[in-house]
Structures are given as structure tokens and as C-alpha cells.
């Protein structure tokens, strides 16, 4: 099947009247890659997808498919497969006719259409549903029909617009994997838009996080989680603790930082940060309860203020002596020894922390 194509977005902007929906965005999607555009609502991610699909025209910038400019091409000339949030199945056509629709537009012979529709129905496990109508299918089945229809004509690019938004949680997790498997199997270059970070983390090779029309960071799911480059990313993906600090001195990628509790730590810095005020970001699962202070690079004394039982873990909120709120996750068996109101020692390793610039220094006071 298709080997996939590469797509480049070059300084693309889209203005609606004076509102900048997409503001000078640039990135590249590699052949066969699954890239997710993630962002809160209003971040411009859906607008960007519409620009890529050709459903709307760019205000400035260009879009390149395999290094060829397709900016001025209309949607029907772009040959992209698209999966809509509500599936957009044609209610007056059977499953077969829905999937055959893009093939018929391409004037493919009847036998070939029958063969290809059958093949693709097999791929999505819906062989026996060809003559049904969309209304007679469950949500998950409709979703798979829509996916089949989007890829049956071997498009150069597959666009997914909130593909799983309408499904319930169990089905969503199952479909995430199914979509990913099918995408890998046929090797199609895919761009997916979602506001659901779990979905993004599960399916994507890379994630492009957007906020207010701009790209905040493009990276692999692991890097986004572990090495957020700014506060937005840090807070948007997963839960995180932010501790404010002042850089005292820097030395070959390492920085000496003084924290609010008067302690000074030395920490790795990925890139040059010019302000003195920084934030140290630590995931809750990387903070542990220590028996002795010497166990970790860094420790805080804190009081447990709230414990929330989540099954696998207990989400525990604490307040340090300096008034900093820190959240951590502890295994359920520890709940015997730790209760609300108890004083604990919290510890973490420098390796697990990331330094990010504090653009809104005044907001947080640790």
C-alpha cells in the first residue's frame, strides 16, 4: 500500500477578520509518520487541519506535499483522506456505497471497487456489514467505516479530526490502538487533531502542541512529558509540580539554583535561559517520600493535607515549610503509615526535574 508522503507547513497563518487563528506555524511531517496536533479548544488546531485539508484558504504561508506547493489546490484536488469527528458518513448510502464513494469519484472499474472495498472492510473487521446503513451501526462501527472510507483510495495523507471524540472511554482506548495498528500497517502519513492528551500520547510518533494559534513544542510523546520546554507544555500534559528558583550561577550546562526554602541545588539545563527566575518542573510520580534526607539530591519537609484514592495510586497533596504545594503519587500500601496532617520528608532526584523559564514570574510564589 501507500508508502506515504511528506508534508511541510511553511510559515502558515490564518486570520479570521482580525483574529489570528493560526499564527505563523511551521513544521514538517515525515513519510509514514503519525503526527498529532494537540491543544485546548481555541488553540487553532482545527483551523490548521482545515488549511491542510484545503477546506479553507491560508492567509499567508504555503503548504508543501513532497516538496511541491499545494497551497492553492482545492480540497478535491489534494487527494487527502479525512476522518471527521462525527464520521460524516453519508446517511443515504450503505456502508459499501460510503466506502466506494471516493473510488467511484476516481472512475475505478466496478470489479476493482468491489475488491478494494472488501479488502478494506476486512482490515476494519466489518466484512458482514457492507449492506447496512450508517444508522444501523454502533458508534465504533461507524468510526471504522469512516476510517475505511478515508484510506480506501490510498490517499497521500490521512487527516483525523478528533477521531475518537464521540466514543465512550473503553471503546476509545480500543480504537486508539486499532487506528494506530492500521496506520502502521499501511504506512500512511497521518495528521491527527485532538484535545485529548492521552489519545495523543498513545497514537503519535510526534506531537505538536498548539496554543493561541502558535506551536508551543513539537516532540516525541516521551520528550514532551519528560522535558517540557515551557510552562504551558508542562502544565498542559499530565500533572506537574512547579517550583520557583533563582539562578545563582551557570556552568557548562549546569546551573546552581537557589530555592525558596533557602536550599541550593545544582541542576542540568537543556538550553540557555536568560532570566534569572526559573521553574523546576517535577512530575508527581518522581517525588517520593523519604525516610532520611540523605536518600535524595533534594528534599523538602512538608505536611500532608489531602489524600485522594485513585486505585493504583494515592494522589497526595502536601505543603512544604515554605508554603509550596507539592503533589505526589504514592502506592496504596503506604496509606497505612501516612495520613492527613502527618509531617513527611519529600525527596526527588535532579535527573527527574526539568528547568523551564518562568515567563510569568509573578504568578507563582514558592
Amino acid at each position, binding site marked *: 500500500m501507500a508508502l506515504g508522503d511528506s508534508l511541510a507547513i511553511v510559515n502558515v497563518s490564518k486570520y479570521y477578520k482580525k483574529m489570528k487563528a493560526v499564527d505563523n506555524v511551521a513544521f514538517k511531517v515525515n513519510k509514514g509518520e503519525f503526527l498529532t496536533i494537540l491543544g485546548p479548544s481555541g488553540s487553532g488546531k482545527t483551523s490548521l487541519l482545515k488549511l491542510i485539508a484545503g477546506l479553507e484558504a491560508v492567509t499567508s504561508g504555503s503548504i508543501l506535499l513532497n516538496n511541491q506547493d499545494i497551497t492553492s489546490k482545492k480540497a478535491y484536488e489534494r487527494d487527502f*483522506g479525512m476522518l471527521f469527528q462525527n464520521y*460524516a458518513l453519508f446517511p443515504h448510502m450503505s456502508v459499501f456505497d460510503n466506502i466506494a464513494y471516493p473510488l467511484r469519484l*476516481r472512475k475505478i472499474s466496478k470489479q476493482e471497487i468491489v475488491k478494494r472495498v472488501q479488502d478494506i472492510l476486512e482490515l476494519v473487521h466489518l466484512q458482514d456489514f457492507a449492506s447496512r446503513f450508517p444508522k444501523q451501526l454502533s458508534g465504533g462501527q461507524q468510526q471504522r467505516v469512516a476510517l475505511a472510507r478515508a484510506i480506501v483510495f490510498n490517499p497521500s495523507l490521512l487527516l483525523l479530526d478528533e477521531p475518537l471524540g464521540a466514543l465512550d472511554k473503553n471503546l476509545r482506548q480500543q480504537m486508539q490502538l486499532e487506528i494506530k495498528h492500521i496506520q502502521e500497517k499501511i504506512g500512511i502519513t497521518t495528521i491527527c487533531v485532538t484535545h485529548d492528551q492521552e489519545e495523543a500520547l498513545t497514537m503519535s510518533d510526534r506531537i505538536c502542541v498548539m496554543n493561541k494559534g502558535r506551536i508551543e513544542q513539537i516532540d516525541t510523546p516521551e520528550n514532551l512529558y519528560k522535558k517540557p520546554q515551557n510552562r504551558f507544555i508542562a502544565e498542559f500534559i499530565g500533572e506537574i509540580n512547579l517550583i520557583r528558583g533563582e539562578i545563582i550561577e551557570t556552568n557548562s550546562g549546569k546551573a546552581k539554583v537557589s530555592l525558596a526554602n533557602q536550599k541550593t541545588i545544582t541542576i542540568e539545563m537543556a538550553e540557555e535561559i536568560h532570566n534569572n527566575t526559573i521553574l523546576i518542573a517535577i512530575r508527581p510520580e518522581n517525588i517520593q517520600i523519604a525516610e532520611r534526607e540523605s536518600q535524595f539530591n533534594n528534599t523538602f519537609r512538608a505536611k500532608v493535607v489531602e489524600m485522594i484514592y485513585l486505585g493504583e495510586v494515592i494522589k497526595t497533596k502536601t505543603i512544604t515549610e515554605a508554603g509550596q504545594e507539592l503533589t505526589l503519587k504514592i502506592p496504596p500500601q503506604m496509606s497505612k503509615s501516612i495520613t492527613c496532617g502527618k509531617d513527611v520528608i519529600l525527596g526527588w532526584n535532579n535527573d527527574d526535574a526539568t528547568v523551564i523559564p518562568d515567563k510569568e514570574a509573578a504568578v507563582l510564589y514558592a
Partner: protein
Amino acid sequence: MATEVKTDPRVPVKRVSPAYRLTRIPGLQWLLLLVPFAYILFLVVFSIIGFFKLSIYDETGFTLQYLTHMFTETVYLQVLWVTLKIAAIVTVISLLLAYPVAYLLVKVESKKWKSLIMGAVLIPFWISLLVRTFAWTMLLQEQGIINKLLISVGILQEPIPLLYNTAGVVIGMTHVLLPYMVLSLYAVMEGIDQRLVQAAQGMGARPWKAFIQIFFPLSLTGVLSGSLLVFVQGLGYFITPALLGGPDNMMISVLIQRNVSETLNWHLASAIALLLFIVTLLVLLISFFFLRNNPVLKEVE
């Protein structure tokens, strides 16, 4: 003497609106349904049954003479044919005119334009039927504005007859019935997901193809309901064909009216009305028969 009701301040009092409480009364919904139902039953169904009874009962008892008269005198079937023909022409023309208007209404995003178009569509509803019909005679006559305009711009050499013929009747009736068609179409088109058309275009369909293959089939429910509404109403039209039509545009309602209030032959009037009623039912049944397997109509929402 005031009675003090003590309420426990800790228990929040659930405030329920009186209207909501009404709906809790068992059987009330049925009662509410009963009123309009009785209205229709007594004022429409009973009176119509009573009227139809006249066609088979007269002073001498049961008789089929009035109904057989429908078939032995050719005039009744001829007029019925004319009536069906005119109603059908009016339906087709209003559909052709209303479809683009309804589509525009759905497509136009500006609220101002939308209400402007809607207003233009609804204006005929606000003007008395007689006034409108007379206005058309002014416009359509040989010395009327339309003919004068067409001659002055050189499209016509001499006036064409627009009045007192089928053209006049069709123009007048279409004007009256067009809003029903527009509203029926608009109601259905509003409900069509525009993303379906986008999806089709995304798959490679040129805009007009996406329209023909996706939007149009989905709007068929509106086409059907609008056409039936216009057609059935058109069958009963009376004033417009009488004033704008020629002698060969006699509609069946004119015959009914004449027998009701001119010749006082109510038995015959009833027989004609029954004939019209049966033919209308047949038309409806046939159209449903042919459309029964349309997947769009099967949709139950």
C-alpha cells in the same frame, strides 16, 4: 391568626416551578392532547363525514346517482384532470424556484441577510389573497408592467398573453404557495450536516458533484414534504384560478363552490368533493409507495 410553618433551615427546599409540577399530574398530557384532538374530530372529521354522506344519501335514501354522474358527464373528470395538471405544474415550478432560495438561506451566514431573505419569502403571507391576485392582474395584463417592460427593452415585439390562461394561474398560485415550499425545504436543509459535503469534497468530489450526490439526496425529504404540501393545497385552489385563469383552467373547487352556493345541489357538490378527496389520497399513497424504500426517509430520529 397566622400559622407558622417551621422549616428546617438545614434542609434545602427544592424549588420546583409550577409548570413543572403540572406535568407530574398523571394523565394530564393525555388531557392536553384531547383538546386539539376533539377539535379536529368534531369540527373537521365529523363535518367532512357529514358532508360526504350527502353524496350517497338524498331524500330518496341511498343512491349512487351522484357518484355515477361524475363518470357519465365528462366535464367532471376533465376538470379533475385540469386541476391535477395545474397543481402539478405549480408544484414543480415552486420547487424549482424555492430550492435555490432555501439553499441560499442555509448557506448565508450573515444573520441580517438571512432575516431579509426570510422576510421576502414570508411577505406574501401578510397580504390578503384577493389583493395579491388583483395585483397580479395589474402586472400581467397586456398593458401591464411586465409586458411593457419586456417590450421596452426589446425582448418582445408585441405583448404576450400572461393573463386568463394557464400561465396566469400558475404564476398566481406559485406566488401564493411558494413560501410553503421554501419553509419545508429550509426546515430539512437546516438539518443537513454541512460537513458531509465537506467530507465528499475532501474525498475528491468537485463542489457541484458533492452537491448532487450528497446534499441533494439528503434534501429529498424536504422536497417531498414541500411538494405534497403545495400539491395538496393547490388542488383546492379557487380564487386565484377563477380570477387569473381562462375558461380551460377551471379547477374542481370552482365546480364544488358552484354546486354549493349557486345551484344548491349539495349532493353533487359532495360527490365532487369525494372524488377530489379520493384522488388526493391515491396520489399520496402512490408517492409513499414509490418512496418507501428511500433510506433517507427511513431515518428515524
